Every structure is written in C-alpha cells, then in structure tokens.
C-alpha cells in the first residue's frame, strides 16, 4: 500500500495546478475555470481517501521531500516534507471534500448569478485549497508556517473578491492584518523552536516534541538550549508564542474581530474559510504539535480558558445579530472556542472529533445560507425573510439538520462531539484542575446561547409568514446548490456516529471508532501517548461524579438539556407567524452585544493611542538616530570629496608632477624600509 503515499504530493499539487490554469487561461475556459477546480479538488479527494485507506491499513508516512537550505556542521536544515498519519489523513479528506463541494456550489452561487472576475475567484479557491492541504501534510513547523501564511494571503484575496465595493477590501485588510499580528508571534515561536531544538520536525525520534519530552524526563537535556530558563518554563513560552498564530487564525479572543467582517466575501468562500481551511488551521496546528503542548500545564490552562471564554463570549454576540451570515460567523468563533477548550482540557480526540463534525455542519450551514441568499437576491437580513420553508424544502431540511448539529441536539453529529468536549473538561476539572471547571462552566453556558441563536436563525429565516415580497417569491436554486447541501446534510446527521462515547459507555459496545483511529499511527503522535503526557506533565487526572458512567450521562444530559432549553426559548419567541425583536427587551445589554462588546472600538482605540505613540517614537528614533548616523557618514564623504577633488586641475603637467612625486615617495619608502640608505 506504499503506492498511496507516493501520490500524496499530488493532493496538494492538483489544486495548485487548477490555480495556475484558472489564473493563466481561465478566461478562455468554460465556466471561468470552475471545471478545472472541480476536477482538481475531486482528484485530491480521491487521493485523500486512498491515503486514508492506506493509513487505516496501518501505514504512515513521514518523509522529507526537499531540503532547500542546509547549514554546515551541526546546524539545522530547512526542509519540505510530508507527514501522513491518522490525524492528517482525516483532515485531508475533510478539507478536500469540503473544497470539492464548495467548488460545485460556486457554480450556482457565482456562475449562475452572472458574477464577473470568475477566473480570479477560482484561482483564489484553488490556491486556498492547495495551501491548506499543504499545511495539513507539513511535517515540520517551518513548512507549516509558510503554508499558514499562504492561507492568510488567500483569505485576503477571496474576502476582498468584490473589491469595487467599499466594505470587502476593508474587511480583507482587517482579516489579513489581525491574523498577521498573531502570526508575528508564531514566527518568533518558529525561530525559538529552531534555536532551542535545532529542528522543527513534528514526528520521529529527533522531533521537537520528542526532544522536549526527553528533556523534561531528565534525559539528553544537553542537546537543547533553553536560554537559561527551566525547560518547562521555556517550553511554555515557546508554546504560547506559537499559540499567538493559532489565536489569530482560529479567531479566538482577543483576535476574533476579523472573522465577522470576513463575511463580506462570497458565501462559498465563507464556508471554505470557516469550515475547513483557514480557521481550522489554528486548531489543527495545536493538535499537530499536541505532544509539545501536553508538556506544559500553563499553556494547556491558557488554551482551555481562552477557548471556554471565547465559546461563551461569541455565543452571546450571536444572539442579537440581524444577518444570517453574522449569526453563523459568531457561531464559528464559538465552536472553535470549544475545540480549544477540548485541547486545553486534554481532550485531543474530542477536539479532533469536534473539528470534523463542525467542518461538516458549518460548511452545510454556510452553503445553506448561500442558497437562502441566492433566493433572497443577495439580501442577508433575516428580518426580510420568513416562510422560506415551503418554497425551498431541500435547503430547509438540510439547514435544519445542520442547525440541530450546531445546537448539539441528540442524535445529530454536533451533540456527540460537543458532549465529548464538555465531558473531557468536566472529568479533568474534577480530577484536580479547578481552572478547567471554570472553562467548562463557560462552555456549558454557551450551549444554551448556541441553542437559542441557532433556532432564532432557523425560525426567522424559514418559519412564519414571509415578511417581504422577495421572500414570497424567492429565486430558485439549481442542482449545483442542492447536491452539496444534500451530501453535507447527510454527513451532519451521521458524522457523529463514528464516536458515540456515551452509548459505548452505556452499552459496553465497542463503537468509539475515532478513538481507535487516532490511537494508532506514528510513535509519539498517538492519542494514548498524549494522554500519558498530560497525565505525567500537566497533572491531568480524571475525576467523576459518582462513577464514570454517571459523569458521562450527567454531562450529556446537562448539555442536551441546556441546548433544548435554548432551542425551546427560541421556539416560543420566534416560531410565530409574525415575530418581533424580543432581544430589544435586553435594553442596553443588546446595544452592547450588537456592538460586539465594543471590541472593534477598543482595538481601534488601542491602535490610535498605544500603537500610534510607539510608532511615532520609532519614527523619531529612525529619523533622528539611524538616519543621523547615515547622514553623518555621508557628509564626511561629501566634505572630504569636495576638498580632495581640487587636485583634479585639468593640467596635464600637474598630473605628471603628481605621478613623479608619488614614484619618488614610493622609492623613498621602499628604500627606507629596505635599509638602502643606512
């Protein structure tokens, strides 16, 4: 089965090829390059599935493909390489599947709507997919960083696709700058990893998580350089630096502000960004180097707390939004908060599981929203919709499946994964890490808000009486919209069945397939190893209320109960023929939520005062000291030049005299040195 891995580079290169094709000859291709993109992502999907089958048969692949810079002696090498293990194989399938469906959906959303600039659009999608796939298979941190940056660039290109309007370019710049701010710390972290370990490989004997583990266990500590800190302190610092990039890309507090604005991009792009590519990249990175984070209880605690806080924080903002895509944007931030919570709480499998189910149901919801937006002639305001249920049944039923999954209602996929996330946080919190309990409480509370805003969105959009003429007679959508929705709708329902932990605990049946999937693979990259690490170095123990079974059931019942309560409240308030804005009763709280807790204003204020003053100081230093030194040196040259040039008289005799004098001086000098005159 080694054959599958020989074709792994093609998974990345195919979408890149479609990018080149769309960019070069897209104008003369049918559908503006869409077909090339569909063929390429379809090919990637097939190859990914093949690679996944190979992994399922016990194969793994960790190979350096190309060394593009090699130092001499004992210094490090900069390489490109491929790492395909169960985690990467699963992610490859998710990314290529969603990219494929997004390409198909784009036929309906972009081509059929008569958009211009289609080659540019498909080129962007191709490059986006290629960068994310490259990121997924990267076998070292530097390569991951490079593709991470490419992903950021593509998001800029695609969010700002409608660059002639005012808002999209500004949103694109914001997305790029905010994530870039986080990536700055990531870059410093990459350098720190190289400086400390001399390698950035994720897997293998000499990889940096393995070296760090050995150092903490007291073996081979001489090989690494911790700059005078205790190893664990230094690993925490390095981990937090890399985490900066994760917080930016995965839109965690406080760098989440770019994501809601990114809704200015075309809706299929939103689906791609939020479900499978850019935002997932951050969480995937933490999962990829989990062996490193598991060594530092401080870093894990911060990840868990930031995750739990973001989950709650974003969920509250989603409650009051008027536009369908805005609600989805905040739900994305919130759901990625859950994944971070799970990672921080030692729930590596739970986070991966939620990453997978979320990819399916969030892509579904975004594409469903795209279908609604087509029908509504690009009006996104939910208060102008209503009653679309009878008029677009396929969209309604699939969207409903996605919403049930998002809200975490039994037995849809989101329930299983979110339940496992909360269970991990609770169990490890009870086991003696009280901070996790605080994060768990925030995550649990967010479940209620999630249920509420999700069903507020569903009822406002699809139920009740149509509130505008457009909603009474919506634009129809074609097969290319319905087919991706159906595929994802089925997945949103069934994806959770791969890992039904509560049922397994209850019945004793062995149906935790994802646990088995992630438990094998390369040595040091398995979930069991991570469990040992968090237990040994972060002191994570599992504690229970009563027995393990009661804890599982209690956790599941609590989250399901809260989700149902939220959904029920939404049902009572909004599932009426003519709903009104009940959130108005929140008064000033609504204003606060509607303005996103004034986070944007706060960041602008921060930029205006702190950053601007620092910049002004730096400018003074640059203009005064740096330029002063440079100008000083040049003025010395200028002055001496203006004096010395006077020997250039233009009279040949003078030159001859100078020549003669020089010769005489030279002879005298040589003579004196050689001792002729003594």
């Amino acid at each position: 089965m080694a054959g599958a891995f020989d074709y792994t580079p093609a998974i990345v290169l195919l979408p890149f090829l479609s990018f080149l094709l769309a960019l070069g000859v897209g104008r003369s291709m049918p559908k503006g390059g869409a077909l090339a993109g569909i063929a390429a992502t379809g090919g990637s999907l097939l190859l990914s599935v093949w690679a996944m089958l190979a992994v399922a048969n016990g194969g793994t692949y960790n190979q350096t493909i190309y060394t593009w810079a090699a130092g001499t002696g004992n210094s490090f090498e900069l390489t490109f390489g491929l790492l395909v293990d169960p985690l990467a194989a699963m992610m490859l399938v998710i990314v290529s599947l969603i990219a494929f469906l997004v390409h198909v959906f784009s036929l309906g959303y972009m081509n059929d709507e008569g958009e211009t600039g289609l080659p540019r659009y498909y080129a962007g999608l191709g490059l986006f997919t290629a960068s994310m796939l490259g990121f997924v298979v990267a076998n070292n941190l530097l390569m991951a960083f490079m593709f991470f940056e490419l992903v950021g660039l593509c998001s800029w290109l695609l969010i700002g696709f409608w660059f002639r309007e005012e808002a999209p370019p500004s949103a694109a710049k914001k997305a790029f700058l905010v994530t870039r701010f986080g990536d700055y710390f990531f870059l410093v972290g990459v350098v720190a990893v190289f400086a400390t370990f001399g390698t950035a490989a994720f897997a293998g004997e000499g990889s940096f998580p393995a070296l760090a583990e050995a150092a903490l266990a007291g073996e081979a500590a001489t090989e690494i350089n911790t700059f005078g800190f205790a190893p664990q302190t230094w690993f925490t610092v390095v981990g937090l630096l890399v985490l900066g990039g994760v917080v930016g890309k995965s839109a965690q507090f406080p760098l989440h502000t770019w994501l809601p604005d990114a809704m200015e991009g075309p809706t299929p792009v939103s689906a791609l960004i939020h479900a499978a590519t850019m935002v997932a990249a951050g969480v995937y990175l933490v999962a990829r180097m989990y062996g490193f984070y598991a060594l530092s209880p401080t870093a894990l605690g911060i990840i868990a707390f930031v995750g739990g806080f973001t989950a709650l924080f974003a969920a509250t903002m989603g409650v009051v939004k008027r536009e369908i895509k805005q609600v989805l944007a905040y739900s994305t931030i919130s759901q990625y908060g859950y994944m971070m919570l799970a990672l921080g709480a030692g729930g590596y499998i739970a986070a991966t599981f939620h990453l997978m189910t979320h990819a399916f149901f969030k892509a579904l919801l975004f594409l469903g929203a795209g279908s609604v937006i087509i029908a509504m002639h690009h009006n996104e305001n939910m208060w102008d919709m209503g009653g679309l249920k009878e008029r677009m049944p396929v969209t309604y039923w699939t969207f409903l499946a996605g919403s049930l999954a998002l809200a975490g209602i039994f037995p849809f996929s989101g329930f299983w994964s979110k339940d496992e996330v909360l269970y991990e946080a609770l169990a490890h919190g009870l086991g003696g890490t009280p901070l996790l309990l605080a994060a768990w409480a925030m995550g649990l509370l967010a479940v209620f808000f999630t249920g509420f805003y999700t069903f507020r969105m569903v009822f406002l959009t699809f139920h009740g009486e149509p509130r505008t003429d457009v909603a009474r007679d919506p634009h129809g959508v074609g097969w290319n919209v319905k087919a991706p929705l159906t595929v994802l709708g089925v997945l949103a329902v069934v994806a959770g069945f791969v890992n039904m932990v509560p049922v397994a605990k209850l019945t004793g049946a062995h149906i935790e397939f994802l646990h088995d999937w992630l438990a094998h693979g390369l040595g040091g990259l398995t979930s069991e190893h991570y469990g040992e690490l968090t237990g040994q170095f972060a002191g994570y123990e599992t504690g229970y209320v009563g027995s393990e079974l009661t804890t599982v059931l209690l956790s599941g019942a609590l989250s399901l109960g809260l989700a149902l309560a939220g959904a029920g409240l939404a049902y009572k308030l909004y599932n009426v023929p003519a709903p009104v804005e009940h959130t108005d009763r929140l008064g000033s709280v609504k204003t606060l939520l509607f303005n996103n807790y004034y986070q944007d204003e706060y960041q602008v204020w921060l930029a205006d005062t702190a950053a601007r003053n620092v910049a002004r100081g730096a400018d003074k230093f640059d203009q005064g000291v740096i330029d002063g030194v440079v100008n000083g040196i040049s003025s010395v040259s200028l002055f001496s030049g203006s004096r010395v040039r006077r020997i250039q008289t233009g009279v040949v005799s003078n030159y001859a005299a100078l020549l003669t004098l020089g010769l005489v001086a030279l002879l005298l000098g040589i003579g004196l040195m050689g001792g002729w005159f003594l």
Partner: protein
Amino acid sequence: MVPAQWYLMLSAAIFCIGLFGILTRRNALLFLMSVELMLNAANVNFIAFSLQWGNVTGQTFALFTMALAAAEVAIGIGIILVLYRNFRDTDVTKATTMRW
C-alpha cells in the same frame, strides 16, 4: 668592455632629461619627444644588461620597445591633432576643461 654602471648612469641621465621635459614644457609635441627620451633610456638599460650577461633577450626587448614607441607616437600625434583642432593651440596648460 665598458662597465655596466656607466651605461646605467647614461640611462639615468637621459631619463631625467625626459622627465624634466615632461614636467616643465607646455608644448604637447615636446611632451612626445620627452616620452621618447624616457623610453630610450630604458632601452639603453636593456642593451647594457644584455651585453653584461651575454643574453639576447634584452636586445629583443629593445626592439619591441621601439615598435611600441612608434605606435605611441602615432596615437600621440593623433591626440595632438585633435587637441589643436579643439583649442587652436598645442599648449597643454590651455586644455583644462576636464577638471572638477
């Protein structure tokens, strides 16, 4: 046989006369003549040492120098012609446009 140092003294004297000409004369033609004197001072040295060591290489070199001197004169006279055309004079101290 006349000892080599006499030849060297003769050569040094000729060279100094040529150098003096270059440093003091204004006429470009006299420059050329002075350069010719200096070249031939070098030739005297070549021949003297050739005689001293009984080796014909020095004489061969003297022949080369003469050919080179002829070529130099051809170019030098060309330059002087152009100088004259541009400045209506062969006085080298008048042609001072290539200066700072």
